[in-house]
């Protein structure tokens, strides 16, 4: 039996790496007597896979994980049961039983929403929302936004303009575009004042990190990009209902695209 879990990760838990989050869940499942299935063999492990886990330091209201269950007598009470064994900074937000033929969420991931906020101990150059919005509009009006993208193996210059589906300093505008509601988040918005919201291409073929957009915006503003000055907070992950394998949706592209939050995607 397959299921998908959506969870948040904030505060001090931002500093727990992906492998340790996995270990955390393994123990939480055992504490909560969640009947997760085990692999066979001498050192059996729980069957679980994470969807594009965050790097250290980032926070999130929408992390996803697929698990295999032996049984699931009361799906309605699962969120509550799991949260009884969780700490305050990693909370299960949604639990969804999947049809047996459901594809793993990682394979379906097409886009993510992020909030980029200022850090408490850094004076932000983007405090003035009006000014930031102008800068952002200036940036988005360009045909090409060229950014040096580093991967483990190579480094190349890419144009990220068509991977920015939406970006705005206004939460309302962003919500209207994405259909999300981001007024109350697990990140403290007084301490981490929002700078902008964005929806970017994500997935195993092309994955645009929000840091790249921030870097481009800094260039636009004529200031140096300091990665330690911003808190990135993930708001949602989407699958593309019409997406085909290996295909990447581009802004205003011809192929139809319907982004659905992974927690609603079957």
């Amino acid at each position, binding site marked *: 039996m397959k299921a998908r879990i959506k969870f948040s990760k904030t505060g001090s838990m931002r500093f727990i790496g992906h492998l340790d989050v996995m270990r955390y869940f393994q123990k939480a499942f*055992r504490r909560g007597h969640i009947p997760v299935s085990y692999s066979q063999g001498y050192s059996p492990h729980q069957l679980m896979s994470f969807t594009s886990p965050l790097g250290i330091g980032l926070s999130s209201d929408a992390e996803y994980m697929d698990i295999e269950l032996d049984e699931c007598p009361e799906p309605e009470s699962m969120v509550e049961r799991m949260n009884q064994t969780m700490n305050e*900074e990693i909370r299960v937000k949604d639990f969804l039983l999947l049809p047996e033929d459901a594809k793993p969420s990682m394979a379906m991931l097409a886009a993510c929403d992020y909030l980029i906020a200022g850090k408490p101990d850094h004076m932000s150059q983007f405090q003035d929302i009006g000014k930031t919005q102008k800068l952002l509009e200036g940036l988005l009006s360009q045909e090409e936004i060229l950014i040096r993208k580093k991967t483990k193996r190579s480094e190349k210059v890419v144009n990220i303009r068509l991977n920015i589906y939406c970006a705005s300093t206004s939460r309302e505008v962003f919500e209207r575009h994405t259909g999300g509601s981001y007024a109350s988040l697990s990140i403290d918005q007084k301490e981490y004042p929002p700078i902008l919201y964005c929806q970017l291409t994500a997935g195993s073929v092309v994955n645009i990190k929000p840091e790249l957009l921030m870097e481009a915006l800094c260039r636009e503003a004529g200031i140096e990009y300091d990665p330690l000055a911003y808190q990135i907070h993930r708001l949602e992950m989407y699958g593309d209902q019409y997406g085909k394998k290996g295909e990447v949706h581009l802004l205003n592209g011809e192929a139809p695209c319907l982004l659905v939050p992974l927690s609603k995607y079957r």
Partner: protein
Amino acid sequence: MRKLALRDEILLKIEKPARYIGNEINMVVKDPEQVDIRFAMCFPDVYEIGMSHLGIQILYDMFNQREDVYCERVYSPWVDLDQIMRKEGIPLFALESQDPVRDFDFLGITLQYEMCYTNILQILDLSQIPLKAADRTREHPFVIGGGPCSYNPEPIADFFDMFYIGEGETVYGQLLDTYKEWKASGRERVEYLKQAAQIPGIYVPQFYDPEYYPDGTLKSFAPNIPEAPEHVVKQVELDMSDTFYPEKPLVPYIKVTQDRVVLEIQRGCIRGCRFCQAGMLYRPIRPRGLEFLKKRAIQMLESTGQDEISLSSLSSSDYKELQELVYWLINEFTDKGINISLPSLRIDAFSLDVMSKIQDVRKSSLTFAPEAGSQRMRDMINKGLTEEAILGGAKEAFRGGWNRVKLYFMLGLPGETWEDIEGIAVLSDKIAREYYTIPKEERNGKVQIVTSTSIFVPKPFTPFQWSRMNSMEEAEEKRNFLLDKVRSQRHGRSIKYNCHDADVSVLEGVFARGDRRLCDVILQAYRSGCFYDSWNEFFHYSRWQKAFADHGLTMEFYIGRERGEDELFPWDFIDIGVTKEFLLREYHNAQEEKTTPNCRAQCSGCGAARFGGGVCMEVRTNESQD
């Protein structure tokens, strides 16, 4: 949101930030404003090592059961963070509240090995607490040491306000109650120390003065105030089944050295190996009840979600109900995906049966600790493991499918000859030969033997406390000799030989039997940049050499001489129950290669019976003799 002591920027810059954020599952949360006593419990090494220590978990649980106490944890910041904290003047903080340690009432430091001594100074320094107890005021926490190294606290005496000698379960309550009274009274710092000194097991170094002969040996060691007792008696928990033991141990996020639930089945050991300090310090052996252990096993696995449980004791095979306990654990837990690990088991039919049930035979290895290569030497150290038993056990195991063996030995035991050393290679080879006596079809590939040696370090409160330790040069020579001998064995290529570094062991030996004059040496070494000495990459032997020379002391004095039988030792003021007469008798027995029976076979009158518990009070039956 939970407050963190370190800014995001710092946490993102350093290795493993999870070491410093706390908030682990089962962490105790209290309002610091609502308690009378804030206790910082410190293991002076990196988080992964400190979090693996059972003793701290027991005390953490015990302290926090008191409503008026909030006990929090502190570990040594790793070198990367250390640098940042010094540069920015960030005070060392406790993981729970993330508050500075200097604002606590107590800083308890557990002393598990000598090579952590400079790390103690790092902890005090980063906490911004004066390094020497004499320089502290009412504003500073009381710094209290405990654990095995506190049985010779003298080399670090200046840095501590007091030491707790013995097991924490007994008089901490009294110590804390007295503290509350003192705190309310507004009296001077020294007044509390005077009261503490009268609590059994508490040693307050500043109330004692050592005097030395011109040759550097101790002339006298006596209290300088009437309140301080002449002898400090070790504290022993007698009822091991009705005492503190955590039901909800902490669960770290990052992988730590002992990433499992630990069940201490007994404390102490009946064996009486003459090199082993723990075997003497924790006399008499006191088993915990089977039902108590079962209950805790269930509770701990339930509350942590850990996937492994390990039994802990000095010699698990001597726990009388071991079979019952182990088969119960297997029945109860293995089908729930929980691993069971059983260190320190004698290899016999029972342990082989159990091991084949709980691990993959092909991937696991057998462990023997003969400690010495010849029967003569094993009799000297009173290690009752015979060659026959080793070869017999190995053969059984090889038949059962095992093909890997780990062997542990010591080099530099008193009275060791070249022949004894060669015996290590010969015994390793005999085990390999044993493997090839079984038919080829039944073998599981080639045999793999890993032979490791450590350098023997004489410890206080052992029959070898009078013995000379090998110099670095001697140890090196012996190592090379043995390596040569291993290579020339018939199955030399199946034997891998590992050995410890001699320079660290030498210093360990010096601290183990050192005196108060070493405090300034340690202080200087620390000031010249020594810490994390137990980590090879940070060990600077030359700085240590300089520190000794600058203080007109030699390491030779502490380790390089056979000590006189009437010499007064710096640790003689501590009474561990086991008498100096008994240790001396055992020292002589060693010289005569005479063995001494274990406590269950026959009481040897070591002195620990005065505590009135454990094995000393057991009725001896014939079947318990082996």
